[in-house]
């Protein structure tokens, strides 16, 4: 019962029922888009209408409560409005509490950020509800910090949870933070570890941003945690969530920057470039500003700006390079050698072939002696040059070293990158003696963001798929590029098979199937690329067969980066092996693969995996159709 002006008693439980029924039948949009603004208006200043509204929602039967609450949360234009409309519903009603604190935050992740803001803001606005806010934060952090959640939940969900955490943090007041400081710290440490372990750069960055935010909240004085990561729109959006303009504040348009300065604490460990630093321009004592008059003044100097240090000449012979790189104390010469090495190798193929393995060994172990710009790229280009000049012995050496003891992960991944780049060069037709790459490739694979190269390859695979689909209107025909023999043909097997042979044999310092799943991921992607480049070679069929078996053995791997690689491998096999060979010699493997792909499409938590699997299934369909429709 409730009171209305005039002293009459009335019950609005009937209205609640209607509201509930309409909502549960899926008509929240129509009803609430009318109702909510009206109620918002009415409840703005009229306390009685507020009570009426609360009674209204409280009276909704439990079985329809979820629909109603969700509807209100989504429709309300702000947390303060939601607060007026729902009152302490979440405290009074168990079902509502479940929906608000559990269902929307932890079990669903499709809602927009505004919804999260509404919901969490609502919880923060009343002292009775704030306890729930803290509880919610704790549960969110538990999920965020759980390694199995980080591994198995989709990136979209992880983003959602991260946003929710940041919004909660923005609402917490000092004393509340103080009281749960220890818990926050523990969760942060655990969580950041799981996130940094992930192979996906997006997850790593989420972990970094959230950890930084938590750190900035709990360490208001003293150094805070600071990571280095790419600042894009998503990162900026996340960071902006940490700042709340309280709705009751009447301060007109306080710029966000000011508040940012207050929330982000004192000296960060890594200095970001800020516009405020003015490097003091050094005042050069001008020799010629001597006031003394001298008769030299009638001798006018010429322009001497070209008078610079003389550069050391690089060696002209490959053997000289080897000598300089291994034993020379002259750092100028060493630098000049590193810079000139790639072109020297290209100009002296015969001389390089005499010492190819030795040179490959030196380059693999070459450390940066002085600070040269682009050292990593220079070394990689030289390695690729050696490998393309003398593919078979050098490939043998590199693949054997990949599985040897006492190499760092960096070196092993270097080997993979070099193999891929060299395979690329060898398999493309040379025009005018120089290799031309199709526009999609980068000449140097970026080593830091592992999955970037797989994105490139996905683009290329997509293009190839496009080229294999039939078009009924052909565009302008392109000039045929100059053709030459495929140099990759004779060496593809030497690149591929040694890499695939020992993956399941753990060494003391290197366990592909265990901890080193990042390297496994890179290896799988490398194999996919090598398979892709082996199109039109003689050895492509046994390669395809071996690769499908490899994929089969690893198909349930827990790391999504590895699975993406495995699916790329399947794409490469389907695209490179001639269709007749596929269907004749690999029928069983293909059938098995097909059923696995079907499973992946339905059940894999990772969106990219699902997409790749679907693509593969479509490819298989196309190939079958092509073969049955076009027997010639």
């Amino acid at each position, binding site marked *: 019962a409730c009171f209305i002006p005039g002293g009459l008693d009335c019950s609005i439980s009937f209205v609640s029922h209607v509201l509930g029924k309409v909502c549960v039948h899926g008509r929240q949009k129509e009803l609430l888009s009318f109702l909510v603004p009206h109620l918002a208006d009415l409840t703005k200043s009229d306390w009685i209408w507020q009570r009426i509204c609360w009674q209204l929602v409280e009276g909704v039967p439990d079985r329809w409560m979820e629909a109603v609450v969700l509807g209100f949360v989504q429709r309300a234009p702000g947390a303060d409005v939601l607060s007026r409309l729902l009152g302490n519903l979440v405290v009074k009603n168990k079902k509502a509490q479940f929906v608000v604190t559990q269902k929307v935050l932890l079990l669903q992740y499709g809602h927009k950020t505004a919804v999260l803001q509404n919901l969490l803001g609502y919880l923060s606005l009343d002292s009775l509800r704030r306890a729930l806010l803290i509880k919610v934060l704790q549960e969110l952090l538990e999920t965020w910090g759980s390694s199995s959640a980080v591994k198995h939940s989709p990136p979209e969900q992880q983003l959602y949870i991260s946003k929710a955490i940041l919004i909660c943090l923005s609402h917490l007041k000092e004393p509340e933070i103080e009281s749960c400081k220890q818990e926050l710290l523990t969760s942060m440490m655990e969580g950041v570890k799981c996130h940094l372990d992930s192979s996906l750069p997006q997850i790593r960055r989420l972990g970094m941003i959230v950890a930084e935010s938590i750190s900035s909240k709990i360490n208001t004085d003293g150094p805070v945690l600071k990571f280095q990561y790419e600042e894009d729109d998503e990162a900026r959006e996340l960071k902006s969530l940490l700042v709340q303009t309280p709705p009751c504040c009447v301060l007109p348009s306080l710029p966000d920057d000011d508040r940012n300065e207050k929330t982000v604490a004192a000296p960060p460990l890594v200095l970001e470039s800020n516009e405020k630093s003015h490097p003091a321009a050094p005042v050069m004592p001008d020799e010629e500003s001597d006031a003394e008059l*001298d008769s*030299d003044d009638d001798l006018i*100097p*010429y322009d001497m700006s070209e*008078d610079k*240090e*003389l550069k050391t000449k690089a060696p002209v012979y490959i053997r000289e390079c080897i000598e300089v790189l291994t034993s020379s104390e002259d750092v100028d010469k060493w630098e000049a050698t590193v810079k000139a090495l790639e072109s020297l190798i290209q100009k002296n193929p015969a001389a390089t072939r005499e010492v190819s393995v030795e040179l490959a060994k030196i380059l693999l172990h070459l450390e940066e002696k002085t600070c040269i710009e682009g050292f990593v790229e220079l070394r990689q280009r030289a390695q690729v040059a050696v490998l393309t000049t003398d593919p078979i012995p050098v490939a043998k050496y590199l693949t054997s070293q990949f599985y040897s003891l006492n190499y760092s992960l960096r070196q092993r991944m270097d080997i993979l990158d070099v193999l891929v780049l060299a395979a690329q060069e060898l398999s493309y037709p040379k025009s005018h003696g120089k290799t031309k790459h199709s526009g999609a490739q980068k000449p140097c694979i970026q080593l830091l963001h592992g999955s970037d190269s797989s994105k490139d390859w996905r683009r290329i695979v997509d293009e190839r798929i496009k080229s294999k689909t039939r078009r009924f209107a052909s565009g302008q025909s392109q000039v045929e590029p100059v053709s030459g023999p495929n140099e990759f043909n004779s060496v593809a097997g030497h690149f591929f098979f040694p890499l695939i042979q020992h993956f399941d044999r753990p060494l003391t310092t290197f366990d592909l199937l265990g901890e080193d799943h990042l390297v496994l991921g890179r290896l799988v992607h490398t194999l996919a690329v090598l398979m892709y480049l082996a199109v039109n070679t003689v050895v492509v069929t046994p390669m395809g067969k071996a690769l499908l078996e490899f994929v089969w053995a690893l198909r349930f791997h827990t790391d999504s980066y590895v699975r993406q690689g495995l699916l790329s491998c399947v794409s490469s096999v389907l695209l490179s092996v001639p269709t007749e060979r596929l269907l004749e010699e690999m029928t069983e493997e293909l059938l098995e693969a097909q059923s696995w792909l079907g499973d992946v499409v339905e059940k894999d938590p990772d969106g990219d995996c699902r997409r790749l699997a679907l693509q593969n299934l479509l490819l298989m369909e196309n190939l079958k159709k092509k073969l049955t429709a076009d027997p010639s």
Partner: protein
Amino acid sequence: MALPPPDPQFVLRGTGAAVHTLHFSCGGQEPDVPILFSGSENGFIHVWNLKTHRVDAALDGHGRRSVYCVETMGSKDRLLSQGRDQRICLWDLAEGRTSVTDSVFTENVGFCRCSLLKVTQGRWLMAIAAKDLEEVQVLELPSKTSVCTLKPEMGAKLGMPMCLKLWQLSCGSQPLLLAGYEDGSVVLWNLSMGKVLSQLVCHPEPVMSLDFDSEKAKGISGSSEKVLSIWNFNEQQNLQVYKTHKLVNAGISDITIRPDKKIVATAGWDHRIRIFGWKKMKPLAVLDFHTATVHCVSFSDHKNPEERLLAAGSKDHRISIWSIYTQT
């Protein structure tokens, strides 16, 4: 906005070998042709006609061993050359002759260029690095009699003499010798007594070349490192370093002060010729033409100031001739 440095006025090609020494003889009257003498690593001395820019004669007197010093004695017909065959040759070039009239066997296998000083008409002093390691010998020409032998005291450890300069304060006064040594010191010798008047360590490396301005009593030396050292005499008449100048690249082969004492030229291992104002060592120009070490620089003795030239000989077999700061 400073002007870019000038290009060479012309380039003499055809020596066929690295050029180690140059000497101008342009003071003659018409119909005398201005001449440049060059000594090369292949043992030839080329006589360049500066009007036609061609070789008038090629003198072969050192058994195809490198010639590293050429000087004239009074006129262009009397030439002195020093080679790695341990010989100093005196030539008579008058009326088209090319004959060696006399020679001195120095027994020295080093690279130290001799220094000549005219004391009276027909009498010259010549300082050369002698047979023994640290010794300098002074001979009188044309008699070839030894005037003195300058030997540093025991334990001085100066090393080989690297460059020599005979000078006198004015005509008729005591001749003195400045010698730069392997240990980086410059020593002032009194010839009549054969004694060291003053010694100064100018460089941590051997002194490669030096030149001295007797009017201002100021000298300059260069070494294999990056610093040029300018020194003079203090109140006690001792040598003191009064200024240094740091270069961009290390190594100086030759230094020469122009006869009018206005500018100084240096020949660098970095292939560049540098010009400085002599009064304050103000850098004036960097002439970047050669593609290998510049071995020698020399100023011409033209009577007409506007015709004055600077020549530089390099390991790249070329001689560049420059007309620079001729207006002062």
